């Protein structure tokens, strides 16, 4: 019932084929929404004068970007400040992906095939930040602390991070989607006019936004700690 629809497929060879799934399609929708916003902002930003009082869209966007800057500095450190745009994009993508469930579409994040690549990018960023900013200390922390025999455990701990991150997000979003689907599927028709409002508010709005925050905060905290312990 909760398997992922496949709309089209492109077979590469006997074992590999690329699928256009429900996740892929809904990701395109999320991308479309974000990119329309980005293009509008890019076009309008040419006319924005820093000395004018911001109004309308400029005000909202500036508030979001400025708030993100403060949020980033509060949860990470200045050493990895160059990752702020990346995590801003990640957060925006996750928020829209999680909230899109309220329209009845399946959130892309309700697919581990979406959340794991995102968590995998975080994993690589952690390694990159650690090795770039304090290579000796970082590698020593993995392979020699507290003593070298713990290296396998440390490596497993590192590898567990993307799995933990991805399953936390995937499980929460999928759980909310399953609950709402069950409600729409089995509840009496009269119950479908009032009760879903509260459930959508929690599972799509509150939980969706919360999970986006948790994923992003954990990611940038891991990266920040790796760069500057």
């Amino acid at each position: 019932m909760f398997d992922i629809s496949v709309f089209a497929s492109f077979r590469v060879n006997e074992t590999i084929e690329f699928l256009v799934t429900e996740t892929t399609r809904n990701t395109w929708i999320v991308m479309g929404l974000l990119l329309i916003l980005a293009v509008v902002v890019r076009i309008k930003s040419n006319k924005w004068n820093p000395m004018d009082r911001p109004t309308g869209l400029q005000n909202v966007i500036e508030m979001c970007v400025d708030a993100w800057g403060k949020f980033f500095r509060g949860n990470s450190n200045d050493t990895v400040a160059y990752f702020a745009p990346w995590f801003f994009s990640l957060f925006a993508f996750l928020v829209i992906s999680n909230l899109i469930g309220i329209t009845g579409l399946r959130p892309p994040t309700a697919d581990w095939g979406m959340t794991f690549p995102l968590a995998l990018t975080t994993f690589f960023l952690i390694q990159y930040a650690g090795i770039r900013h304090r290579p000796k200390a970082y590698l020593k922390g993995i392979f020699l602390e507290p003593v070298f025999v713990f290296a396998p455990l440390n490596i497993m701990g590192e590898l567990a991070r993307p799995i933990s991150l991805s399953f936390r997000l995937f499980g929460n979003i999928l759980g909310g989607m399953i609950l709402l689907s069950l409600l729409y599927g089995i509840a009496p028709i009269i119950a479908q006019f009032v009760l879903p409002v509260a459930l959508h508010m929690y599972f799509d709005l509150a939980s969706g936004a919360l999970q986006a925050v948790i994923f992003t905060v954990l990611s940038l905290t891991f990266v920040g700690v790796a760069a500057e312990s």
Partner: protein
Amino acid sequence: MNPQFLFILTANRYRPLLDMDLQMFVDMLPNLLNFLITAALLTYLLYKPVRRVLQARADRVEGDIKDAAQNKATAEELKTQYEQKVKDIEVERNAILDEARKQAGEKRDQILETAKAEAQDVKERASRDIATELEQTKGAVHQAIVDISTDMAAKLISATIDKNAHDKLFSEALAELEATPAFSKETVAV
């Protein structure tokens, strides 16, 4: 709640939700690519332009704050200089006033001295004039009395004296006159 109207796509089959096979990881590639494209475009189309605007505003505000601080420092320096000038002017004014008072005092004393001297001169001149006038008046009165007395005596004598008495008086007067050193016979002879 069927969202199929968004795309003319119909599910022809289903992929298992969590099937840990190679296909699962192959399906991740387009998802990862989609996110990377989204992140890149969001960064370059949205985040950086907005950040530039915010940075420009922050720089401008910081510049304004620095200017304000500099202006404040300049104003305080000017205020200090102004207050010092006011103090200097006060001192200079007092000095000028003191000098003016001193000069005025000296001038006053000088004027007073001059006035006193002039008054003394006037007074002395007046005294001399009065004395002269008095002497002249005295002389005039004396001459008038003499003239009147002479006239009265002549009239009285001419009215009362006879020839004998006249001669007798003339002789006595002549004798008295001759008795004085200025009109003695020796002096007259010389």
